[in-house]
């Protein structure tokens, strides 16, 4: 089977083009470096199946990081190279084009972002460019599919350029300059009000104000959408579901099976939060409490990503992240971690050095509350007003900074400077945003929900067998004097090691004081969120660094819990 490789600079529209050609959904984002691995897909070319590869972005064949190395190594597998070029940054993209032509493989150029180029008054003489490069050049607009048919039609015309070989880097640069002067003319544009506003979002004072405003709007949107889904989607469904559950409860009668499936009845009725049965709490926690906010969160994140604001946020926050051994790009794992820690830890991959990846992964898994943990925080403390909730998030933020400072001092390795190409602001397309949200939610349901569910099952069985109670008796004295929590809260802290969100149901009936609840909830949030987080840390960091991260987590939880106790009680 023939293999077609899509290759080009970061953020030129390769992924959008890839999903256009293959029908495979991939995540495309308006910030460079989203695709770290390559993706494979298939399409039918004139009745024949061909394989299509979506390479990570690279500015040149002289790779400077992991992702770029992947892109370059894919060249050997390719029979045909589709070089995706951003028509608005022709000069920059042509470096790779010229390098590719030297590879003596069939090449065709997709001149993407054609719509934006026209909008900006950039005129490119496509005919002339074809003549100079001696390979086909097709203007495309990947997001509207304009020109895609033409690109596919002309794939067969891809050919090996017979241009004379260039010697050395200097010649390549000179040649690129040459070509651009010949084929491109740019209409002069004034610095508009819009440009000034856009500048203001990366400048120090105004940039911070924008960042705070945007993050505030993000959380407001998550709450609004999340609560909306719960009110109009979740509640009606779970109200209907009460009938079959009550019937099952009556039919089973008291006993072990009833305890495991339905759980304990509160005042003779099933309580979705406190009953702890697999078919009650086990379903309600992931689908009724966490999923609505996950949907809302991924929607907000997609809007943020596709607008092009994230690289600007990374620029503005760079200063702070540098103190923590990271740089501005560290905001990406943190933001993703607020949804689910697993993709957050995975995103740490895009950082350059091992030290940065370790710090980012540890900070995310220890201090960044995932949506299930946030659900717990709100579930337990919601009745006591915003004060305690703010206290928990404030503590977590402080711990984020302090732990970062400590890790930066103790972990070995380098922290390179931020070097980032900022794409223009774009209006997010409704279709792209919906699709991306849907893909991430689908991923969450397939990969994370089973863990939520499993957590309920395991805790349930351990509870029914009396194992948690037994363990609790042994560690209770320590927990009591260190965290100032009554013995009855200890099972919740233990079960919380497996699943935080369950702890809500276990803590609420205990009638603890708000201060005690705050301590319990903070400690629970500082633990790793779940078994899945452990697994991903192990995979990304290796055994040794994972153990270090786990040690950091335990020490932080003990220290912070102890300090809170002294301060609050």
């Amino acid at each position, binding site marked *: 089977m023939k293999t077609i490789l899509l290759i080009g600079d970061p953020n030129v529209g390769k992924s959008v083009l890839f999903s256009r050609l293959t029908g495979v959904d991939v995540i495309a984002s308006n910030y460079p470096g989203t695709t770290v691995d390559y993706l494979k897909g298939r399409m039918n070319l004139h009745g024949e199946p061909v394989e299509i590869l979506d390479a990570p972005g690279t*500015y*040149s064949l*002289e790779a*400077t990081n992991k992702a770029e190395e992947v892109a370059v190594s894919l060249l050997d597998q390719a029979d045909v190279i589709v070089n995706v070029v951003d028509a*608005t*940054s022709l*000069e*920059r993209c042509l*470096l790779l084009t010229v390098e590719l032509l030297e590879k003596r493989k069939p090449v065709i150029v997709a001149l993407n972002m054609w719509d934006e180029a026209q909008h*900006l008054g950039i005129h490119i003489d496509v005919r002339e460019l074809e003549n100079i490069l001696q390979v086909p050049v097709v203007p495309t607009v990947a997001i509207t599919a304009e020109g895609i048919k033409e690109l596919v039609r002309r794939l067969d015309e891809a050919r090996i350029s017979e241009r004379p070989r260039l010697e050395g*880097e200097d010649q390549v*640069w000179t040649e690129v300059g040459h070509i651009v002067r010949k084929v491109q003319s740019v209409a002069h544009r004034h610095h508009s009000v819009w440009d000034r506003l856009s*500048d203001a979002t*990366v*400048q*120090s004072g105004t*940039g911070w104000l924008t960042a705070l405003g945007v993050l505030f709007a993000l959380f407001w949107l998550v709450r609004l959408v999340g609560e909306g889904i719960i009110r109009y989607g979740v509640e009606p469904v779970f109200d209907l579901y009460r009938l079959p559950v009550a019937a099952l409860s009556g039919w089973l009668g008291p006993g072990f099976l009833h305890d495991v499936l339905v759980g304990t009845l509160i005042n003779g009725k099933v309580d979705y939060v406190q009953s702890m049965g697999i078919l009650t709490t086990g379903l309600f926690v992931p689908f009724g409490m966490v999923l609505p906010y996950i949907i809302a969160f991924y929607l907000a994140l997609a809007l943020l990503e596709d607008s092009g604001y994230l*690289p600007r946020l*990374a*620029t*503005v926050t*760079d*200063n702070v992240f*540098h103190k923590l051994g990271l*740089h*501005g790009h560290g905001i990406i794992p943190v933001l993703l971690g607020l949804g689910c820690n697993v993709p957050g830890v995975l995103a740490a991959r895009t950082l350059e050095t091992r030290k940065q990846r370790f710090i980012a992964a540890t900070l995310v898994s220890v201090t960044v509350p995932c949506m299930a943990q946030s659900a717990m925080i709100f579930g337990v403390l919601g009745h006591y007003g915003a004060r305690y909730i703010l206290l928990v998030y404030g503590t977590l933020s402080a711990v984020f900074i302090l732990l970062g400072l400590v890790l930066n001092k103790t972990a070995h390795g380098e922290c*390179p*400077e*931020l*070097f*980032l*190409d*900022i794409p*223009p602001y774009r209006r997010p397309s409704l279709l792209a945003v919906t699709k991306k949200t849907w893909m991430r939610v689908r991923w969450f349901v397939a990969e994370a929900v089973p863990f939520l569910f499993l957590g309920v099952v395991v805790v349930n069985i351990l509870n029914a067998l009396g194992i948690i109670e037994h363990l609790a008796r042994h560690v209770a004295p320590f927990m009591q004097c260190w965290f100032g929590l009554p013995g009855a809260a200890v099972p919740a802290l233990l079960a919380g090691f497996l699943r935080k969100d369950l702890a809500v149901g276990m803590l609420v009936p205990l009638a603890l004081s708000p201060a005690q609840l705050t301590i319990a909830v903070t400690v629970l949030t500082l633990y790793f969120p779940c078994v899945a987080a452990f697994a991903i840390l192990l995979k990304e960091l290796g055994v040794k660094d994972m153990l270090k991260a786990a040690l950091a987590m335990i020490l932080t939880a003990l220290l912070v819990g102890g300090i809170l106790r002294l301060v609050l009680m």
Partner: protein
Amino acid sequence: MNEQSLALLKQGDTATIIALHGGCGFQHRVRSVGLKEGKLLRMVAKHHFAGPLVVEVERRHITIGRGMAQKIIVARAL
């Protein structure tokens, strides 16, 4: 001529790149995002505490650390 390192430009200044210092890898990296000899650039933002700089070149914004900016020599437009 008014030669200086990029890191010394003030917000709002425009300048032309005249030379790149530093290793081959570094030079290659900055050239490949458009920071090449002869290009006109504008300093869009300078962050405090030795934070990053944002420059505009060929209608695109690029964030670059101070250390890297020090290795880029420019001539300020008067």
